[in-house]
């Protein structure tokens, strides 16, 4: 293999990922220290752009609301696995960060009187579960687009340094201190070392390991496996959210905002089946509850179509005017991907893999932490994480709609502040280790030198099909044991994978193959975590253990990677003590 140049850059703060979390952090840090962002895609192509329905905050613009109700809903939504100090921080800070976004220029929809428009959303209630409340602050159904573009605009104004189309390959550590990242220049080829005082991962979610998914092509969870490969752990990966309303056959999301505006689900008999599963809020129950109800209906032969494998989402009764005004993006998606005019006919939908509750463990300051059942959590020096790639954990076993855009802004900002302060306190850079980046450069050089017939797609296809079948909405000991073997086998096949493209310039073949390596690595943690967890909680539903078991399983899973690629599990307690209010103790979850 020919020599490939290595270029070295120095920035006080380095952020990997230019979605909402990364940009909010960059904006904050750049006000104080030299800050750079690297991203695999141009910032506005990040997945945050797809978010539709809204961002949760108890502004109370439409009806009275209260951050404590929001906190209760979030704790309950998390099936009591969320950390209550972080959740209090999230919900209390929400109104402030949303107002701040408006001040930055985010074009929220408005109500009479000129305040921000808010709509109902699943799991968000008033007065501790009494009835649904308008808490989702929205810009039509393009909230993510407006949020990402607004943050990017502000970053341009603040002169943040962007390295677009750079792909992170390895976390660089000097002993126990994270000192930067090795990356690949996608456009021109070549290695780049980013030497930093503080490094944040804001690399997004991991649901591309499932066939039916609402997620972008790039959501391959690279940040998780890079963390595992650096000898650190990841948390609660077995908790994957299946959103109830993905477009049948395509997986693209139809926002819960449709049900928030008054749309509802029907089975093949035309029944509103949600009334039996969630007698109080019906279609606006938490996502795990609705997805399971749909799957249950289909199992009992009440699904629609020849194969009985989808449900109908009816919204035409809302009227064409409201749909075009508040749900224009949904009209487009239904038209393009389902050939349906949703002002006239219902949209065929099935559950779709949507959100990664698990991620890189952090505390409420976005500092990456390591702990265990008897060791209190300790920050990893110089390392931060925020957004969907992190696990704070504010979403526990199931995330509420609109809490993720909130999460990325709250913890992005907090992490930005903490990194700037840490970088300023550090004085000198901690030096790079000897042989910095040897692992990542070898990975790329080896792939560029491969010959052989095994291609990434044939492996990936098996992975995403079997993950969906064996580790999806329903799981059992049997399916998970089978899946563990399948993933191990795929990892063996991956060792002989070859790429066609050997060039330095825009080598997508190389990138996708690297990404498959990441997906295989952390899939093992998803499956092992799910197999070990003999209970049902939030997004993790075991047919063979259908009840939540707080005695044995009220704890977070941690996964470490062994040198042979296998996973070692450990656990740590849930942080039950909020900052200023009494704990919400675990209760049965009914909607």
């Amino acid at each position: 293999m020919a020599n490939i140049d290595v270029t070295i850059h120095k920035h006080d703060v380095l952020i990997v990922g230019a979605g909402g979390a990364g940009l909010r952090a960059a904006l904050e840090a750049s006000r104080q220290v030299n800050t750079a962002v690297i991203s695999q895609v141009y910032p506005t192509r990040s997945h945050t752009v797809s978010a539709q329905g809204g961002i949760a905050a108890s502004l109370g613009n439409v009806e009275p609301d209260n951050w404590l109700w929001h906190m209760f809903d979030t704790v309950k939504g998390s099936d009591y696995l969320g950390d209550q100090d972080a959740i209090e921080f999230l919900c209390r800070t929400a109104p402030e960060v949303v107002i701040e976004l408006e001040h930055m220029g985010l074009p929220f929809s408005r109500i009479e009187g000129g305040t921000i428009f808010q709509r109902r959303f699943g799991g968000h209630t008033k007065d501790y579960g009494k009835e649904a409340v308008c808490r989702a602050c929205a810009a039509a159904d393009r909230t993510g687009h407006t949020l990402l573009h607004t943050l990017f605009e502000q970053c341009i104004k603040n002169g943040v340094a962007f390295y677009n189309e750079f792909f992170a390959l390895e976390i660089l550590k000097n002993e126990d201190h994270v000192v930067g990242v090795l990356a690949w220049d996608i456009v021109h080829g070549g290695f780049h070392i980013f030497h930093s005082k503080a490094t944040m991962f804001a690399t997004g979610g991991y649901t591309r390991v499932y066939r039916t998914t609402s997620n972008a092509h790039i959501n391959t969870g690279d940040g998780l496996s890079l963390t595992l490969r650096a000898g650190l752990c990841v948390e609660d990966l077995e908790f994957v959210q299946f959103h109830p309303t993905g477009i049948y056959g395509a997986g693209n999301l139809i926002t819960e905002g449709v049900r928030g505006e008054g749309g509802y689900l029907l089975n093949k008999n035309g029944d509103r089946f949600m009334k039996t599963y969630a007698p109080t809020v019906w279609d606006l129950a938490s996502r795990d509850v609705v997805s399971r109800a749909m799957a249950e209906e289909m199992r009992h032969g009440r699904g629609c179509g020849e194969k009985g494998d989808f449900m109908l989402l009816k919204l035409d009764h809302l009227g064409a005017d409201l749909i075009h005004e508040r749900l224009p993006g949904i009209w487009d998606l239904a038209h393009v991907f389902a050939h349906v005019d949703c002002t006239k006919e219902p949209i065929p939908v099935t559950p779709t893999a949507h959100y990664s509750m698990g991620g890189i463990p952090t505390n409420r300051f976005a500092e990456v932490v390591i702990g265990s059942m008897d060791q209190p959590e300790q920050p990893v020096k110089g390392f931060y994480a925020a957004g969907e790639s992190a696990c704070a954990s504010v979403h526990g076993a199931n995330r509420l709609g609109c809490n993720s855009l909130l999460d990325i802004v709250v913890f992005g900002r907090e992490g930005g502040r903490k990194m700037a302060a840490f970088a300023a306190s550090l004085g000198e850079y901690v030096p790079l280790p000897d042989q910095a980046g040897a692992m990542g450069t070898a990975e790329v050089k080896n792939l560029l030198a491969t010959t052989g017939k095994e291609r990434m797609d044939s492996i990936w296809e098996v992975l995403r099909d079997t993950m969906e079948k064996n580790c999806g909405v329903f799981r059992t000991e049997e399916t998970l044991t089978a899946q563990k073997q399948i993933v191990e086998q795929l990892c063996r096949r991956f060792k002989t994978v070859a790429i066609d493209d050997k060039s330095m310039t825009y080598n997508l073949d190389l990138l996708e193959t690297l990404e498959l390596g990441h997906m295989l690595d952390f899939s093992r943690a998803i499956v092992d975590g799910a197999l070990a967890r003999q209970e049902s909680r939030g997004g993790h539903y075991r047919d063979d253990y259908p009840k939540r078991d707080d005695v044995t399983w009220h704890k977070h899973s941690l996964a470490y990677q062994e040198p042979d690629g296998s996973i070692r599990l450990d656990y740590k307690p849930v942080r039950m003590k909020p900052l200023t209010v009494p704990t919400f103790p675990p209760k049965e979850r009914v909607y």
Partner: protein
Amino acid sequence: MAKSVTFSVFRYDPEQGRKPHYTDYQVDIERPGMMVLDGLNQIRWRQDGTLAYRRSCREGVCGSDGINVNGVNMLSCITHIEDLKDPIVVQPLPSMPVIKDLVVDLTDFYEKFYLVKPYLITKGPPPSDRERLQTPEQRKLLDGLYECILCACCTTSCPSYWADPEYLGPSALLNAWRFIVDSRDDGADERLEIINNRNGAWRCHTILNCVEACPKLLNPTEAIGQIKKTIVQRKF
């Protein structure tokens, strides 16, 4: 429906001595509703891994995958194969330097965007404890503007931009107008001054290519018309 269609794809790799050329691939129609992006993925995964293109969201909202198909700029991820004439000729966006295959260098496109100060400019501080107020009617003025995904389909279809690479182009101008009409913004003067020169709004000759090219059905020509009107009224 045909069982397969021909994709005739523009290929260029700067590391190979070869000139740009077209390669034909047969794409199997495996299910109804396949998009051009599904076809490109099929080619790369099963036939030829060396093909390069951009993509991310695969649902028409991120703007990564503007390309030229049968002579028209569009997003590969929301263009149905069955709506196209076979053979399907796939090219990079016109008039931009090609990096490889369907991937073009968008540096100039973004530079133009940055030039128009595409961010809220305010003179006074915001209210301390709540949002700035904006009526639903004021907010409505942003519809048809704020949805821009920066895909470059419009600018790269504009004959004025082809003729004069210094021209700001429809996308940058539409984005400038998005802020100028925002009731919260105080930056109209700064922006109009930038736009009111020979490479700004006056380069537009209302040829309307940009409107046809926009996959989000936005109307840059109309925005440019409004800008011209405003400049004239203000007598810069």
